């Protein structure tokens, strides 16, 4: 199964959705994906709006005295094909189209959105959002100027809307066949391929306009096995901001093997004895520790409201001086990357912990103004239906200087956490959790019995301070991580080298 661009473009069949909602759109998509200089002109044509319309809507948004307004246009199309019981027999597609108007008055927000983009509907929405303000002075919008994407972190070779569904299905069949071939205990395989393409057009009352073309691709498989009457299941997936070049033989093979390995180990695994103990976080997905323990609590909306457990710790030492933690929107093709955030601020790499010091919160436009600093570019939103709020991007810890073997050998009795499914945090109390799908007991400095299905709970500041060893094996986890906050879902990633947390509370039997 080899794919190349020519095969993809030579579709000759149904392309699922994407070009369907706007017949004039397809050529523009390809051009826009490759030539950002034409982005705004393309987007205005696509959304059927003129600069005059935009100015009128911005003026309506500010007519009650709001001090800032922005307009966020979105046209997204999502496709999914799925395999079950050995056949690619299910597909779905979804088109979402509309625009949102946001008005800020100090740190207050008015928001409204419409699905029908006409001057009348937009002005109506703008007047709804404008009600947040009640000031005397009315700000006049300035001239709009295109802010070009300087660094494109997700350039696309083969747009998803240029390939047909029959070009998508073989990879799913291959995953299915490989998983069955790898282990005779396999009973069922579910595999799915999802692609999303979003056309984002933004302008604000500061005069900034941009267009961003945002691809997303996910490929995953659930493996269900049976051994001696016992059934177990696990999951492997990859997600990137890429076009159809995402589908390769390598990624298919990696997912198939990983799904089998992660399911297979569960038959030998037990629940450990619960309680406080040292935990070695394996490289990669252990970045969930950073996401839950500190990432959310560093989001600046919680801190400007003084309700995060880290609210009084900016510029203070929070952990060992050798530890650096980054939230990065600039990693090429990463699921969490942003060329320009949904506030109109360029994507950035932000040190949130530098040399053990809490160096920065994660800011959107409102919090940056509150703290009197430049935004870190973390203002993100799920769709045009939502207002932007501070969100993580790719959150990871930089590598240390010891080997994983050294870290494990330092633990007499504890656990090694390898793979994770989900986590959660209480921002104010600081208690965070993550669910370990599989891992190992550590006994006398060595990995021994596999373990599974346990929750680990800790407290953010304490856990950060309790990181005593950091490995030299940094790894990004490019799974399908999706973060939820305020009812909004947001694609993110996380990464980490192996690290030792000297004390966490591990779920288990008493």
């Amino acid at each position, binding site marked *: 199964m080899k794919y190349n661009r020519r095969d993809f473009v030579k579709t000759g069949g149904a392309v699922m959705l994407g070009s369907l909602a706007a017949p004039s759109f397809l050529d523009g998509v390809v051009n826009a994906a490759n030539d950002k200089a034409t982005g705004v002109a393309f987007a205005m044509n696509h959304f059927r709006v003129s600069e005059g319309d935009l100015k009128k809507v911005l003026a309506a948004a500010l007519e009650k005295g709001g001090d800032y307004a922005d307009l966020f246009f979105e046209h997204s199309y999502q496709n999914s094909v799925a395999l079950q019981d050995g056949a690619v027999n299910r597909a779905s597609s979804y088109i979402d189209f509309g625009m949102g108007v946001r008005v800020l008055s100090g740190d207050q927000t008015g928001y409204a959105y*419409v699905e029908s983009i006409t001057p009348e509907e937009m002005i109506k929405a703008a007047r709804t959002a404008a009600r947040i303000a009640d000031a005397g002075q009315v700000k006049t919008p300035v001239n709009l100027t295109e802010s070009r994407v300087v660094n494109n972190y997700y350039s696309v070779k083969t747009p998803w809307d240029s390939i047909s569904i029959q070009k998508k299905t073989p990879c799913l069949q291959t995953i299915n066949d490989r998983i069955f071939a790898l282990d005779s205990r396999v009973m*069922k395989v579910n595999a799915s391929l999802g692609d999303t393409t979003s056309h984002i057009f933004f302008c604000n009352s500061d005069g900034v306009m941009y267009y961003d073309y945002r691809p997303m691709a996910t490929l995953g498989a659930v493996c269900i096995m049976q051994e001696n009457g016992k059934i177990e299941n696990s999951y492997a997936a990859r997600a990137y901001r890429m076009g159809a070049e995402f589908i390769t033989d390598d990624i298919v093979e990696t997912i198939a093997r990983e799904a089998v390995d992660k399911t297979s180990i569960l038959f030998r695994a037990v629940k450990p004895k619960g309680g406080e103990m040292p935990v070695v976080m394996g490289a990669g997905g252990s970045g969930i520790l950073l996401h839950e323990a500190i990432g959310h609590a560093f989001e600046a909306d919680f801190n400007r*409201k003084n309700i995060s457990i880290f609210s009084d710790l900016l510029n203070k030492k929070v952990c060992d001086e050798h530890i650096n933690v980054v939230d990065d929107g600039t990693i090429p093709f990463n699921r969490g990357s942003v060329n320009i955030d949904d506030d109109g601020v360029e994507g950035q790499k932000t040190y949130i912990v530098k040399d053990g010091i809490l160096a920065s919160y994660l800011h959107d436009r409102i919090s940056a103004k509150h703290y009197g600093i430049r935004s870190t570019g973390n203002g993100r939103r799920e769709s045009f239906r939502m207002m932007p709020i501070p969100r993580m991007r790719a959150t990871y810890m930089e590598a240390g200087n010891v080997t994983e073997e050294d870290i494990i050998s330092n633990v007499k009795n504890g656990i090694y956490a390898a793979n994770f499914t989900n986590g959660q945090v209480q921002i104010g109390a600081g208690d965070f959790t993550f669910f370990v799908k599989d891992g190992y007991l550590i006994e006398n400095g060595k990995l021994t019995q596999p373990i599974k*299905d*346990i929750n680990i709970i800790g407290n953010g500041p304490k856990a950060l301070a309790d990181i005593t060893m950091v490995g030299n094996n940094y790894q990004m986890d490019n799974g399908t991580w999706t973060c939820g906050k305020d009812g909004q879902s947001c694609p993110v990633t996380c990464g980490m080298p192996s690290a030792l947390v000297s004390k966490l509370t591990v779920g288990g039997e008493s």
Partner: protein
Amino acid sequence: MITNEKKKLAQWAMEFALKNGCQASRIIIYGGTNSSFEIRDMKIDRLTQASESGMTIQCFVDGRYASFSTNRLEKEELEKFIADGIASTRYLAEDKARTLPDPSLYYRGGGADLQLLDQRFDSIRPDDKIALAMQVCDEIMGKDSRILSSTSSYSDQVSSRYMIASNGFEGETANSSYSLLGGVSIKEEGSEARPESYWYDSSIFYDTLIKKGIGTKALERTIRKLGQKKTTSGKYRMVVDNMNSSRLLSPVINALYGSSIQQNNSFMLNKLSQKVASHKLSLTDEPHTPQSPGARYFDSEGIATRRLPVFEEGVLRTYYIDVYNANKLDTAPTIGSPSILTMPLGDKDVDGLVSIVEKGILVTGLNGGNCNSSTGDFSYGVEGFLIENGKPAQPVSEMNITGNMLTLWSNLAEAGKDTRRSSSWKIPSLLFDDVDFSGL
């Protein structure tokens, strides 16, 4: 409600799909409006308002199936959308299990009004909505010197759906909901911790929405968290309050879905008619309860709902099997998902259940965790209170409960009487024996 114009559009889409390659089709057109007002420290923090609509077209083409949704409802675009969707469907593998329901299973109308839509919805003035949210915030603001943040929100929405199927189904639903919420964050002395909690009410009708005491209750729930700490690991009797009891039931219900059974990915596999839980667990689906969230006469495929025993004294009586999985399993469909789940109620509220526990833990919050769908093994983070001599004592947090769902529900000792009317799952506070807690 869906307008006649939109209904005609759905009917047109159906005809177009059938004329252009679908042998069968189901069309759903939906719409709604919503508004919300969030208050922080007696100032409006956020206001949002919007209306939306969309259409889903489910295509059955040459024994193949796909589903397409869009919020672009102009006919010209829909024509190309549907035609290309049909063309795409033809590239999928044949799947004979994909069929519409047998028409004899459809709801045919005639049921009494379930009273799920407040006719007053459009008459509630924005100023009144803001005043309600302000009132909740006022119950919190300044009531304790340790308060860091007082928040409240009012939100409402009305949503409606119209569904038709090519083998003779037509149905419509409309629902309204209002909610009022208070949230509090306080500073813990001598610590960086800022405990937070909330309280809320929601209702189908504006007039029955509880409007007073929401903020006061939120403040009480926050203050009682002060001084949380871990306690010793071990087996405890566990009382779970009615804000969290449904979440412990959720993996059990998920394990009953036809998709889980058909994929052999369920710890309830081959358990039908077996005793799998305590005799205290009886659960019935009561879909026709008026003025209750979750009430409905038909499911997402149009199949008529009916009263359905799920567990009787611990014996599993049904799975939730939709048409697709029924065809695959060569059995009859039941219904696709639960509507309103009810339990026989006891005679105690949460305090009453706590009062009969000499030593245990009252769980008032779940923090993360998960359940293995194949085996039922679970582990969840918890917070709450140590129970000593029938009374809540030390607040506890940063602990886990771990076990297996079948064991947990076999250890159900007593159900309370304090269901929440705002939930479609009417699960009261519950008492379980012998639950593993991990802490110190």
